[in-house]
Each structure stands twice: as C-alpha cells, then as structure tokens.
C-alpha cells in the first residue's frame, strides 16, 4: 500500500516536469538577429476593407419580362453605379444584367455566365448582388458557384446586400448555405403552386388556349376563327391530304409569302407538322401535351402518360373536319415509311385462284394483324382456307406410292428459281422472279394470313399498292429491293417468324388464263444469315476469316427429302382446280369509317386560294 502511494506521487511529479518543459518550449523566444517577419502583401477581396483595391462586378436580375420588372432592373443599375463610386479603391468593371431570365437554372443566363467567366479569369475580384435569391434560386448552382469562386487562386467573393453576407467570410458559411436552400425551396413551392393551379384549371373546363395561327380570341377569351389566317391552315391540311410533303407545303408557303403566327415568312417542314398535329384545328383541345418535370431546368418534355390529360371535344369552331384531321394524323404516322398517298384501302380478292388474298401496302403501317386476318376471313371461311388433309388416300395405287417424297427444290441449287429474301425492312426478289413478268411491269403484293402465303401479281392500273421491284440497268432488267419497314413487323407476326432474322422462300410460278402469279409459302421459308468462317467448318479449303452464308431449314426437314407425294399432288390439284387468276377484289373496311373531304373538293379549294394569291401583289397576309 505504501509503495503504490509513492509510485503515484513520483508519476505526478514526472508529468508536471514534462508539462513545464512543454510550456517553456511553447513560450518561444525570438532572437531578433535571427528572425525576420514578412507581412501580407496581397490582400484578397474583402468587402469590409476599403483599403484593398477591388475590381467590382455587379449582378442584377429580374425574372420576368413584365414592364414593371424592367423598372426594378433599371433602378438597380443606377443604385449600384453610385454605390461603387463611393468606395475610392473600388473599380466598377461591369454590370452584368439578365433581364427576363429565371434564376433556377444557369442555362440562358448569359450575363451571369459571363460574370463567372470574368471572375475566374481574374477580371473581377468582388461581386455584389442584391440578394441570394437574385443570385440563384437553385441551391446546387448557388453554393457550387460561390465555392468555386472562393477556391480560385485569387479568391473572388460575393456580397449579398439584403442578407449582409460576404461569401469569403468564414462566419457566414452556414448562413449562406441556409439562405440558398430557402431560395431553392421558394422556387419549388412556386412550381408546385403553379402545378396545382394548372391542374384545377385544365381538368375542370378551363383549358389554356393561347393564340395560334387561324384563330383569335373574342372578348370572353374564346377562340374564334380568324378568316385572314384560316386559309393558310386549310391549305396546309388540304395539300397534305392530296399527297404533298410537308417540305413542299413549306416551300409553297414561302413562295406565296404567307405569314406565320409570328408574322414572318420562314416556313419549315417542322412548322407545317406542328400545324398538322394541332388538334385545335378540328375544334378540340387536348391539355398537357407537354409538361416540365424539373422546376430547376424548365425543360419541357412530351407527356407520354406521366401527367393526366383532358380532351375537350367541340370546344370551338373547327377549321378542318375531324375526319380529315384523323386522316392526316395517320398519314403523318406513316410518312416516315415514305408513304406518299392518301389513306390506303385494304382490298381482298373475292373470286378465283387468289380468293382470300389481301393487298399489302408496303409503306403503310396502319393496318394491323387483325385487319389482314379479318379481311381474308370476310370472303373465305377458316375451313375453306385450310390446306387439304384427305389427299388421295382412296387412290388404288396409294400403297405403292405413299412412301415417296418429292425432292424439294430448296435442296437443289438451280439458277432458274424464283426466290425472295425477306427481312423486317426490305424484300428482294430474285432475277428469275422479275423476268417471269412482262417487261417494266409494276406488281402488287398480296398476303394470305391463314395459309401464310405471299403472292405477287401484275398490278391493276392506278393501284396505290403497287410496288416497283425492278429497274433497267445496261439494257437488262435487274431486281431492286422493296422497302417493307412499315409492313415488316405485321408480316413477321402473321407468319410467326423470329424478329431480326432474314428469310428466303422459293416460290411457285403459276400461269393461268393468260395471267401470272408467284406464290411464296411461309412454311417453305428458311433462315439465312452470314457468319465469319473460322476455318473450322467442313470446308477446310475455305480461307479463314471469309464470310459464308448459312441456311437454317425448318423443323422436320432434316428427316425428309420433301413433301409426301400425295400431299404434293393435292396441292397441285388445288392449283389446277383453284380457278382462274382474277382481279376482282373489294375494299375491306377497317376500324372507324372516315368521311374524308373529296379529292376534287380539296383540289378546288387549293386552286381557288392559290389563284387568288397570284392575282394579288406583294405578300399575302393569310
């Protein structure tokens, strides 16, 4: 016991001695002969120190183009010019002013961005702004910019007059962060308030109807037709219905001197599309076609269902009929497939060998799988369309020949075959196909959805569904590819084909009653693709790295040479007994029937308006 007390005492003594040593060392001792002091020579920006020379930039902003806000802007400029003059060591470099620009984003704040660039370049060392909310309403941008300026080699400070905060003052950091957050939240709250207000208005009978070409507002704010501008709108729709492209319409409007909503004559294809897509021209109003998801960026995006919408029918007097408007939308949807004509019609063959075949419009995506199926079934029942099952089993020689198979032509490489190569974007008929038909003949493509067959026949005059599948080159007819992008997906679905694969089919050429037709059966389709030959295949003589064509045959082909002889005979009998190749077909109506303005009427209107223009001198006002 006694010994531990002694130890503790000794320990405390040692600790005290050590502390004394440290105190002694910390007191320091300056030897004036061996010490030199260097004071600060470069003063950083300091709002509160008038002795420091500072290059000052003033930032002013008002967020709307309201005339009252312009007054505020001018007053700020005058005030700060006087303010700087009162500090003898300050030099006013520039007043950076953004008028009518929101503070929630730095995009489009040209003056602000120029100011920051000058600060980073060392042109200015001190920025003065009225308040944090003027500087930025986006907390990320605000704090980010202030910190980046503070971290410069020559730090640049920002003074917020209303809050009396200087950004380079260490005491103000927390307050600054807090105020920036408040400014950001104010913007957020305003945005939400606007959103709620819009919702109440748009979904409760008060849609927004700003001014648009062809309409003005009456004293109650309702849309009424502006008869000076309305002809421009009607012309655009009528011309498009007749098959003019949007670029052609824009060019004609420019040449006619037609004025747009903004009063200029600078029509573009996109401008025409905007008119054609605007449902207000058929008397309807659809709200929330776009919305702003982020209040900071102010960027509008298309509403694909993220916001509720309201459609007001018969809201105001239409310039264009509803049916014409619907037709134009369908045509616009298919314009990317280079569809150049008015709404196509689905036609189905009612008699003869091609009974049940439906015409295909390779540039139109508007017809669905069901449309084709129903069109075919409208003239022939499913049972009638099925392939024969009871084939000649009552033949007395059946037992003799029943095991014979007709070797399929796909196993024979013969130049004389009629092949077609189909992908989801194009079709390519072999030379033998096009040479089977008379020279320079346009052809028509048909499909049998139940039998899963394609047919090619001579096109009936003035048919819109005809395709150009060949061209003359060096005096010889050669194939050209047929675009099938619009129809490809439908075709693949009807034939149960794998998307992305290419299919090749060998067809049958049939000549009857002086007419020709090519038939391609989907069941005979084989997949074709190109792969790089690694030299590990069976052909050891093939150089490595060379591409080779690979063919994948349908399931079941590997165990047979071809179709059973009797089935083959039954199919042949169907061709013989199937009637003549006839052109009789009828229109199959799909979906809602549209009562379109007649072609003659469209042309008359265009001629009347454009002839009237040609009689006028100078620009046509609309």
């Amino acid at each position: 016991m006694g010994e531990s007390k002694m130890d503790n005492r000794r320990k405390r003594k040692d600790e005290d001695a050590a502390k004394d040593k440290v105190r002694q060392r910390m007191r320091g001792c300056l030897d004036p002969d061996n010490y030199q002091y260097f004071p600060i020579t470069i003063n950083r920006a300091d709002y509160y120190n008038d002795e420091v020379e500072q290059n000052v930039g003033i930032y002013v902003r008002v967020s709307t183009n309201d005339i009252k806000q312009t007054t505020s802007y001018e007053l700020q400029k005058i005030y700060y010019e006087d303010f700087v003059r009162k500090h003898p060591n300050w030099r006013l470099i520039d007043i950076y002013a953004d008028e009518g620009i929101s503070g929630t984003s730095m995009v489009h704040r040209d003056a602000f961005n120029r100011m920051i660039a000058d600060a980073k370049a060392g042109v200015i060392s001190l920025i003065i702004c009225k308040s944090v909310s003027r500087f930025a309403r986006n907390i990320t941008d605000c704090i980010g910019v202030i910190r980046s300026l503070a971290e410069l080699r020559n730090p640049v400070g920002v003074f917020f007059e209303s809050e009396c905060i200087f950004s380079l003052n260490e005491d103000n950091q927390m307050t600054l962060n807090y105020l920036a957050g408040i400014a950001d939240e104010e913007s957020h709250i305003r945005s939400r308030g606007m959103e709620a207000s819009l919702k109440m208005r748009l979904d409760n009978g008060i849609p927004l109807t700003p001014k648009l070409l062809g309409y003005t507002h009456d004293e109650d704010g309702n849309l009424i037709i502006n008869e000076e501008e309305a002809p421009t709108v009607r012309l655009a729709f009528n011309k498009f219905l007749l098959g003019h492209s949007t670029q052609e319409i824009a060019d004609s409007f420019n040449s006619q001197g037609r004025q747009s909503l903004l009063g200029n004559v600078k029509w573009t294809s996109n401008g025409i599309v905007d008119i054609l897509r605007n449902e207000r021209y058929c008397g309807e109003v659809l709200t929330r076609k776009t919305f702003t998801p982020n209040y900071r960026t102010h960027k509008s995006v298309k509403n694909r269902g993220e916001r509720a919408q309201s459609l007001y029918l018969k809201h105001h007097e239409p310039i264009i009929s509803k049916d014409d408007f619907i037709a134009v939308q369908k045509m616009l949807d298919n314009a990317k497939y280079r569809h150049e004509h008015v709404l196509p019609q689905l036609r189905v063959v009612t008699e003869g060998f091609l009974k049940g075949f439906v015409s295909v419009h390779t540039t139109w995506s508007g017809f669905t799988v069901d449309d084709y199926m129903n069109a075919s079934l409208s003239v022939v029942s499913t049972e009638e369309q099925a392939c024969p099952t009871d084939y000649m089993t009552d033949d007395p020689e059946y037992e003799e020949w029943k095991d014979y198979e007709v070797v399929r032509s796909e196993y024979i490489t013969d130049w004389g075959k009629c092949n077609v190569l189909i992908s989801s974007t194009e079709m390519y008929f072999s030379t033998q196909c096009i040479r089977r038909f008379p020279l320079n003949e346009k052809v028509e493509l048909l499909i049998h959805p139940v039998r899963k067959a394609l047919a090619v026949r001579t096109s009936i005059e003035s048919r819109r569904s005809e395709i150009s599948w060949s061209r003359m080159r060096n005096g010889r007819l050669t194939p050209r590819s047929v675009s099938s992008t619009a129809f490809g997906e439908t075709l693949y679905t009807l034939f149960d084909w794998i998307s992305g694969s290419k299919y090749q089919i060998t067809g049958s050429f049939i000549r009857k009653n002086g007419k020709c037709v090519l038939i391609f059966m989907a069941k005979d389709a084989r997949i074709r693709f190109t792969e790089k030959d690694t030299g590990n295949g069976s052909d050891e003589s093939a150089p490595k790295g060379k591409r080779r064509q690979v063919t994948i045959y349908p399931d079941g082909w590997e165990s047979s040479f071809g179709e059973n002889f009797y089935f083959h005979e039954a199919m042949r009998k169907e061709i013989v007994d199937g009637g003549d190749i006839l052109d009789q077909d009828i229109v199959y109506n799909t979906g809602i029937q549209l009562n379109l303005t007649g072609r003659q009427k469209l042309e008359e209107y265009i001629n009347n308006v454009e002839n009237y223009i040609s009689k006028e001198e100078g620009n046509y006002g609309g």
Partner: protein
Amino acid sequence: MADEYISTDEESMEESVDITEIYPQDDFQVLRAEYLPQIKKYSVSFSKHQMSVNTACLKRFPETELVEILLNRKAKKMIIRPMLEEEKDSLLWCNTNGGKRKPRKVTVKYLFEMLFTMMGWDRNCRYKLLGGVAPFRGEKVLFFDLTSEQQFLIGTKNNGNHPIFPKEWENQFGLPFSEHQRASQIGLFDEYKPVPVKEQEGEE
C-alpha cells in the same frame, strides 16, 4: 477336241449338238454388265454434289426439259418423273446448245448429303445407278434402285474414273450360268421388268 468343234456349213448345222452336253453350264460365267459399256442404258450419276442423267434418258423423253425427283427412303428407290410444265420442285435436266440436247449437271448439295448419308456412300466416290422405264400412275417414268449402285473412284482429268467392284467379284467374269438364270427371273425392280432401249425404239 478339234473334231468335236461344230462345223459352220449348212450340213453341219443340221447335225449340231447342244454345247451344254459337252461343256457343263456352270463352267461358264455370264459376263457382268458392269464390265461392258453401258451407254445405251438409262443411268443417273451422283458426284461432287452434282447429279446428272445420261443421254439415253434424254433420248427416251425427247420432249421433256423439266423433271421431278421422287425418293422412297424405305424401299431405297428413286424416280425421275418428266414434267410438262414448270413447277416449284422441278429442275432442268438438259441444256440445249445448237439444237442438240445434252445432259446437265445439276448441283444438288443438300440432296447429295442426305442421300449419301442415308446410303452410306463415300463422298469421295462417284455413284452411278442403272435404271429403266416403268409405268407410274398412267405416266412413264425413269426408275432407279439405290441399292444397285456402281461405285467409281473419282479420277483426274487425264486419268478418268475408275470403277470399284466388290471384293467378291475378284477373279471372276460374272455369275455362273445357272445362278444368273435364277437371278434374272426375280427381276431388278420387283414386279417391273426393265425395258431394253432397242425393243422400245422398235415399238415406237
């Protein structure tokens, strides 16, 4: 033995004796057709992924340019059927150059592979099938037995194809006479008898 030879003058002919009384039948062998030129017999050949018929086939069907091929996997039989009109599975079996028809070599890559696999044939060899004309549902067709193939080793341009005969044919000209008689009664094509080219030309 010399005085036992049969004289050729008329008097001696009346007194001729049955040679089989002098020489036993089975000391004679019937020379195999495979050792003789067969240009006048109907044949189809398969070699290097190609198929072609001989001129005799073309002459038998002078109006035919298109044919269909039928195969029976179970019975190992093949039919070449003349076609009147172009159809999807028909093929051109001849070329016409200067008015003269010549057999055409048709590339039948996938058919070749399937057939050779089915029959166990050597892809480095050429196979020739001799056939005949037979009735087929009211038509006349060319009929071939896949099991009666003749095998040839594919030669070079200057050194033609060499027939490959079965090992048991070594040191013999053909079947003994009586055995040959028995074999010909069965017939090569079951109930169908091959019709020789010469007789048919006579009928026409």
